[in-house]
């Protein structure tokens, strides 16, 4: 046992302990949420997914989350529709057209944007953008469109940098051969390189969606908070995350209402888990 071995052993122990803490925290989190959600799942059961009506404090109570689940999906869908093309365009520009100075500028702007706390973005939307949207015909100051814009601003840096990474990971020789064959710069980037980077781009899309669906504070501030299925962009929505954040603070601990909120959390966790698994599979097939 010389000094070097000892050092190695110490380092190894530290790394193992930290890794174990991480793994236990994850398992613990899952276990905690499942345990807290169980009473609602067993006692309320299918009503959670079948009913549109969320009246947890009435007598008799009703715990339907369908409107909120659909609200979450619709909102995520719209935000993704905005942010994914935008993210791709930004990434594409950075990859192929930007001069080094431009690249630096855009990169640092994106990094700064990703550092803005979501509360600030929420306040900004509520104070400046909300009146504008009211002017173009929204009847409610918090609505689907505003929330989707907020989520897009939040996740754009994330989507753009992930996509840019996957584009840059493509072998340069592919790009060069395409250009040598006489393809234009745009065709090369859009058709050849993007195709080669497709798994990476898909992965970026999934991770972005995963991020959007879990965002809480912005939707709490600007989505409106009515648990209805939105019929237009100007209708208010109430995603699951907003309901949890809004009610968790005042709900009697251990009640069925409390448990139902955890069930909502579990739904989100399961969605996120599936998305992560999907992303892992894509990455693996890509590496092969």
């Amino acid at each position, binding site marked *: 046992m010389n000094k070097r071995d000892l050092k190695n052993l110490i380092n190894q122990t530290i790394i193992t302990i930290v890794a174990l803490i991480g793994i236990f925290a994850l398992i613990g989190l899952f276990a905690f949420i499942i345990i807290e959600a169980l009473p609602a799942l067993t006692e309320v059961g299918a009503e959670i997914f079948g009913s549109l009506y969320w009246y947890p404090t*009435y007598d008799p109570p009703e715990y339907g989350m369908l409107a909120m689940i659909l609200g979450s999906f619709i909102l995520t869908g719209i935000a993704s529709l905005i942010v994914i093309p935008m993210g791709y365009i930004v990434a594409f520009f950075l990859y192929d057209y930007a001069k080094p100075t431009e690249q630096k500028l855009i990169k640092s702007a994106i990094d700064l944007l990703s550092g803005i706390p979501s509360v600030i973005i929420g306040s900004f939307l509520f104070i400046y953008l909300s009146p504008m949207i009211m002017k173009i015909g929204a*009847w409610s*100051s918090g609505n689907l469109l505003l929330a989707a814009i907020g989520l897009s601003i939040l996740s754009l840096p994330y989507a753009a940098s992930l996509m840019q990474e996957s584009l840059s990971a493509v072998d340069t020789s592919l790009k060069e051969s395409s250009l040598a064959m006489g393809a234009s710069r745009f065709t090369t980037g859009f058709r050849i390189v993007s195709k080669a980077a497709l798994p990476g781009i898909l992965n970026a899309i999934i991770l972005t969606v995963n991020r959007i669906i879990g965002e809480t504070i912005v939707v709490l501030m600007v989505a409106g*908070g009515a648990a209805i299925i939105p019929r237009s962009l100007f209708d208010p929505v109430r995603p699951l995350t907003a309901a949890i*954040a*809004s009610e968790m603070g005042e709900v009697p601990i*251990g009640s069925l209402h409390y448990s139902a909120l955890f069930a909502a959390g579990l739904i989100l966790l399961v969605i996120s888990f599936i998305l992560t698994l999907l992303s892992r599979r894509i990455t693996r097939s890509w590496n092969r």
Partner: protein
Amino acid sequence: MKRTILVMLLATVALFGFAETLVIKGSNTIFPVTQLWIEEMKDMYPDLTITLEGAGSSTGIAALFNETTDIANSSRWLKDSEITKMYQEGKYFIPIVLGYDGIAVIVNPDLGINEISLEELANIYTGKITRWNQLNPNLPNQRIVVYSRNSASGTYETFVEKVLEGERMAPTVQMLESTQAEIESIARNKYAIGYTGVGYVTDDVKVLSVNGIQPTKLNILNSVYPISRPLYMFIDATKGYPQTGPVKQYLTFGLSKRGQELVEQAGYIASYGF
């Protein structure tokens, strides 16, 4: 979970010797009053530690049952289920009225409306009336944007009980997590309506008279104003009314002249010394 908290509490007590502690939990409506009281009491009783948790009336009463709080602030009376539980467990909680809260119905100042009846209000919140001109032909033909506090808040419970008489609020009602957010949203939207404790009303919104009655001090104190409620402190008096100790000190201060002044300062109506 609760056990660990208890153990931690005991541990802290053991650590800090036996300084007197007082735990207060419950209604968020009463939270600001209690906060002011505690600030003043710190100077009067330097070795008394008071912890305060605003978590909703139901939580406070539940905590009184499992003895994790000394005082439960509640903006509502006990539910039947709680009274039954009290009887079953052989406990006796007593209410002390610390002040009154009136729930003001607020709209945007630009909307030409000054009064509303309780029935109209109920119709708006249950979704039977959705446009302003259905209420009064002189009002604009615009959708009513209805705001409410979220379903876990005490203000919501009182509103449902006093205005909707237990009927369900329409799903189109927008739930907001704080009074602040509600006032801001209404101040910005010309066709919005909402409700909040009288203590929180600012100049950005207009208060409507309900059934022709304004939520003035006297109207609320006499319960003439239809949407008002007493605010309670519940204490566990199973072993008799506390004669000494922190609970007694707290109650004595709260009901004193100064304590009642602070109730007014928090935006409510003092129940004593009118």
